[in-house]
């Protein structure tokens, strides 16, 4: 069974710095592997440990630093790692990002059975890219998955939980699954894993390798464009109460 895992590095959104002009200060942002993408890796490794003849290929699209995430994926158990990197890719929206990934998956891992992704990325949080990958590759998907009790070359069983509505699906392979919960098992690579990982070279491909014209990807190729980005401000004129706090609250409570 051939598993593809798509992972992404994201800025740490809990530690956002702003420039004087109220723009995101990207230069001072720390990047880390998106938490739910790490979960997707864990599910892949879990399947590999439970069944025979499972291979894992990790994909990431991003700048050259994204190779860090791929090295980690290899240490965890991936036997191949593919970095899709090109200046032309920058600014791609969800539709184009999905198209780049889908075309790469079809080209470099045509015999994939299962694609695993995280349900959402902490930065954009659109929950769209994985669905768009599934549609571009014309495969069925299950999203918001919290358990994969069974997987083989022909079918995958996935449990989806959407706000308490729990559906168990049987998906025909090839298929895509987006996970939104930590896997029950989590493999932490040891020193030997990292040594083994050093012997696996990360394959890097660019727009030309994938047959894209520069007009088809990045900001130019994306069907959407950010017209304006701003820091949310509320219109509230907040009044601070500094004295007789308890009495004031009681007043609101009893008199509205």
């Amino acid at each position, binding site marked *: 069974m051939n598993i593809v895992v798509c992972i992404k590095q994201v800025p740490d959104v809990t530690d956002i710095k702003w420039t004087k002009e109220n723009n995101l200060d990207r230069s001072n942002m720390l990047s880390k592997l998106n938490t739910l993408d790490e979960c997707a890796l864990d599910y892949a490794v879990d399947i590999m440990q439970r069944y025979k003849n499972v291979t894992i290929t990790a994909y990431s699209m991003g700048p050259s630093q994204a190779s860090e995430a791929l090295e980690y994926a290899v240490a965890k158990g991936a036997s191949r790692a593919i970095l899709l990197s090109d200046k032309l890719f920058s600014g791609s929206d969800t*539709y184009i990002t999905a198209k780049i990934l889908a075309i790469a998956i079809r080209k470099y891992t045509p015999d994939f059975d299962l694609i695993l992704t995280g349900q959402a990325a902490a930065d954009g949080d659109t929950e769209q890219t994985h669905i768009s990958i599934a549609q571009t590759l014309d495969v069925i998907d299950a999203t918001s998955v919290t358990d994969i009790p069974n997987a083989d070359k022909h079918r995958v069983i996935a449990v989806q939980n959407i706000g308490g509505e729990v559906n168990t699906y049987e*998906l025909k392979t090839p298929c895509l699954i987006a996970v939104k919960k930590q896997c029950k098992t989590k493999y932490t690579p040891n020193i030997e894993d990292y040594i083994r990982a050093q012997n696996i070279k990360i394959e890097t491909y660019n727009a030309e390798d994938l047959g894209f014209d520069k007009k088809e990807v990045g900001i130019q190729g994306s069907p959407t464009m950010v017209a304006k980005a701003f820091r949310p401000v509320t219109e509230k004129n907040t009044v601070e109460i500094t004295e007789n706090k308890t009495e004031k609250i009681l007043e609101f409570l009893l008199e509205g």
Partner: protein
Amino acid sequence: MRKIAVYCEKENNVLSETSYELISKALELKKSAKELTTENNDFLIEAIVLSNSIDANDVQKAYQAGCDRFVLVKDNNLDIFIQTVFLEAFMDYFYQNPSEIIIFPATPKGRILAPRITTKLHTGLVADCTNLEFILKDNELKLAPTRPTFGAELMATILSKSFPQCATIRPKVFKAKFDNQTKGDFIEHILKYSYDEARLKILSSINEKTGISDYSDAKIILSAGYGLASDKSSYDKLKKISEITGAKFGATRKVVDLGYVGKEYQIGQTGAYTEADVYIAFGISGAIQHIAGMKNCKKIISINSDTDAEIFKYSDYKIVADANEIINQIYSKLTS
């Protein structure tokens, strides 16, 4: 005539509340088009439902919310949601009856179906929007959806270069408004193709949703956050204070998830929504999901020991204090 399509969902056999919210919002867009430009500014609002049936009352209500044409894409296979089946059914209608704008509800199923449709149409999709308006760009009306991103630290207005222009809209952000318009077109689009063998089989489906308290009539709500966790007796005390004063007790998702209070008290995006007259937040930091459920309350009073807590931005009154201490004092006064 130009057209705005609104994808509507059924929930428990009736048209979902979000459907009416989106139709009313489309009506606002339609009106604003007339203010922004004088030429070619007339829009038809089309509600599209994929189902095996629709109740006449729901259709009536959709007209009252602002829809001009109600489309039922009808097939027996549409009583269970399978994304690829819904995709084909939607496309069967849409290819013959395209529109320049499609708005979808950002519900779990809406967010699964919408990217399928827009990818198939090779167009863009703006996810989980909290604002929607028309702007004039190069003398053309453009749909301008705005969405929170980077953990809601940043808002982005995103335009579409391709057609149709599409967005998913977060539920409970816009208000459904009903007028006396009771007439519109009704189209029944019956599918004429047979389905391929499903690539997805549903083995079981269980609803573990617990009941959520109804906060729609609440006047005063006392709501508990994780900031009270250093003294867990505060949760019971605040509940008791609510009982004594006739207020309603509420809580954030975090304290519900941690088991400090029951799921039925959860207020926020995945819990209840409220527009109460008075909302007093005790030790609530102000996660965007919680804000979504209470920001429209008329008077918001927040108590938090962190003077920079997010919740203060949405509050009319800010009190920097230990919320546990305040609860203790109120509790003593009311029970002595």
